[in-house]
């Protein structure tokens, strides 16, 4: 899995590419922590390039959400593939995160 770091309207975007599972979720965690440490107003995680995620990936995003709330950062998940969305629904986290369909729906925090 590669993790791209991009910008959207001046805010950071973390865009993992590939399956996220127990074998590589620490890589995603590293990039999320690095971005959150800079305390941006908004952090977007673009999951459009993630065909599969297991609960270790979900746990990484839950941890990022908790840090973002403590830090006053608006965390947005976007472009989830149906399979990834499915695990958020199974874990009943689909209503806990701010999830949008695409980057076009993201406005400034």
């Amino acid at each position, binding site marked *: 899995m590669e993790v791209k770091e991009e910008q959207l309207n001046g805010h950071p975007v973390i865009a993992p590419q590939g*399956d996220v*599972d*127990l*074998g*590589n979720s620490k890589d995603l965690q590293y990039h999320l922590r690095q971005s959150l440490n800079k305390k941006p107003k908004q952090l977007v995680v673009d999951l459009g390039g993630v065909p*599969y995620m*297991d*609960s*270790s990936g*979900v*746990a*990484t995003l*839950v*941890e990022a*959400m*908790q840090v973002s709330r403590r830090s006053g950062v608006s965390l947005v998940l976007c472009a989830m*593939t*149906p*399979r990834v969305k*499915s*695990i958020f629904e*199974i*874990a*009943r*986290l689909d209503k*806990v995160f701010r999830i949008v369909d695409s980057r076009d729906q993201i406005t400034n925090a």
Partner: protein
Amino acid sequence: MTECCGKQDGCCSSATPDVRIEVVSQARYLAGARDLVRAVAGRLGFDAAQCGRIALAVDEALCNVINHGYDKRPDGRIWISIWPMGDPMPERPTGIRIVIEDNAKQVDPEKIKPRDLAEIRPGGLGVHIIREVMDCATYEKRNGAGMRLTMEKKLDTCPPKDTQ
């Protein structure tokens, strides 16, 4: 959620699994195990969405063995066995039975329970996901050492194909 029928009612055609693989307790092999399970489930008649969910359940079970059973030790052994459910040579099986075994530490099966999802925190979702995805999931101690997880999914419980 009910306990798996196991062999008692003859739900599986043979004592010997159609597919059996052994993997070491390393997360880098999860993707290969998922691909195998997804492909076999597809050949047994499950649609793409169900194949993905069955592979997810197996992934979660393997993660639990790696993390909790073997405490992230990289040299543990894990065995995945797969049977089609139903008559010995049906045109279309009635489901899939997957057994995951290890030589890791034993725990009381009664203590393996999903956590309260109202508590939003990282981790601890694996057992919930397994029980949500599969029709049944039964943990038991193996004779001597390790644990056995038996999971089943019947084809007729598939939801409509409106999700991937």
